[in-house]
């Protein structure tokens, strides 16, 4: 436990130094209430930067969702995913999407929030890919939980996909207004609305 906390603190310190993230709570305030944060994904740094922008009490209750095939192994990666971030690992091979959603809902329990990247994989940062349907099914399964759009800016320039050396620019993280899947809303409509909420957060 203490080693994980130490590693977490170090990681957050390094991330802040490297990415200078500025958190902007545009549409909501930080809260320990259960939430589903969904963000654009274009760098390995996304999850840790978002995590570092949450106040410590919120952070302790927030678990990033990560790919089992990438983070599931042993060694440092496995340690970080399991012990430091308390990640919820999901199988993205696509065998059974329902099982993934059930697993997420179950892992959240009654207290934990999660960080989700609904594009499914890292993009180039230039365009937001269409969302996978998991976000919709999860919101249906947990209609009592707010979905908060989070826009991550500049991280694709700090550490783009395929690079290992970072360039220390400044980044920003904007938290938008919470939303939930409406009773009458179809899957396509909801995913469209969620995607637009995220796009609107991008700075003018």
């Amino acid at each position, binding site marked *: 436990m203490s080693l994980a906390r130490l590693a977490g603190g170090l990681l957050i310190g390094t991330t802040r130094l490297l990415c200078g993230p*500025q958190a902007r709570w545009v549409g909501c305030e930080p809260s320990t209430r259960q939430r589903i944060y969904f963000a654009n994904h274009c760098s390995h740094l996304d999850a840790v930067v978002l995590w570092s922008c949450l106040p410590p009490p919120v952070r302790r209750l927030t678990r990033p969702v990560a790919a089992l095939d990438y983070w599931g192994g042993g060694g440092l990666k496995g340690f970080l995913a399991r012990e430091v971030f308390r990640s919820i690992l999901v199988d993205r091979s696509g065998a059974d999407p329902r099982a993934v959603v059930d697993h997420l809902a179950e892992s959240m329990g009654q207290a934990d929030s999660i960080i989700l990247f609904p594009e499914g994989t890292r993009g180039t940062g230039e365009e937001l890919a269409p969302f996978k349907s998991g976000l919709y099914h999860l919101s249906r399964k947990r209609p009592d939980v707010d979905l908060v759009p989070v826009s991550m800016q*500049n991280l694709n*320039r700090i550490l*783009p996909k395929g*690079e290992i050396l970072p*360039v*220390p*620019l400044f980044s920003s993280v904007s938290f938008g207004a919470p939303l939930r899947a409406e009773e009458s809303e179809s899957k396509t409509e909801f995913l469209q609305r969620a995607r637009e909420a995220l796009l609107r957060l991008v700075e*003018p």
Partner: protein
Amino acid sequence: MRILTEPRMVWLFGGVLVLLVLASAIGWVLDRRARGEKARAVIENLNARIRAWWVMCAVFAVATATGGLGSILLFGLMSFVAFREFVTMTPTRRGDHRALFWAFFFFIPLQYWLVAVDWYGMFSILIPIYAFLFLPTRTAMSGDTEKFLERTAKIQWGLMVSVYCVSHAPALLMLDIPGFEGQNALLLFYLVLVVQSSDVLQYVFGKTMGRRKIAPDVSPNKTWEGFLGGILSATLLGSALWWATPFTPLQAAGMALVITLLGFSGGLVMSAIKRDRGIKDFGTLIEGHGGILDRIDSICFAAPVFFHLTRFFFT
């Protein structure tokens, strides 16, 4: 540490301390008297600036106390952050990644290392020649030609203004001025003091008497009244501080005039860049002031010219 007990340094720091106390007192009085939302906002920003000045002066004092190395490190860090701010607001592309990595982690440390080891010849050509030729090569190797010239030009410009130009301030420490040996820290203090007080005085004259705008399309805050009042009073201050420099009072007046005019140019040019990019400040690091680059824009322009005038006429 010895430089801090040098009587002239004590006088300079003492003077700055008195000014800070005075500014804080005035800020406190204004805060109690301010009525109306707009006035309150101006005073609040003013007090944030004054608080930040305390911190900046303390940092500068610590750097000066540690001798040359501390000052070189401080300006090196400022360059690093300023370049970060500059590149952050410049649209670079994926193909620039490796070139930027070299700029951040090779050219910036090397430039300040050259100051530390007193290698003037290499110091003066590293960025204008070697970085200028190497960085576009690295970018070209990445294969992305979209807006190539624009991207490389912007990176080079950012490196010139936030690293090359700024590094001329601590480079004052390596000048050999006959009869002024071991006292160069005073010269660095003089430059920073005159440039920054010119900024402050232009702000004060502009806020209190400013009417006619100099360049409304570039910066709505710059007025003729602020410009003239600030430049003249800062020049006066600069010549009154001749005893801290190797200059005669008249020479000090000339130097101070050049420094303040260049400081003004720096602010104007950086405002034009910010206006073009549609941003108000380069960053948020210093409360009330914006980013590092917003605070040192005047030093960027004043330092190299002050350095070379001193080098040409006094060494």
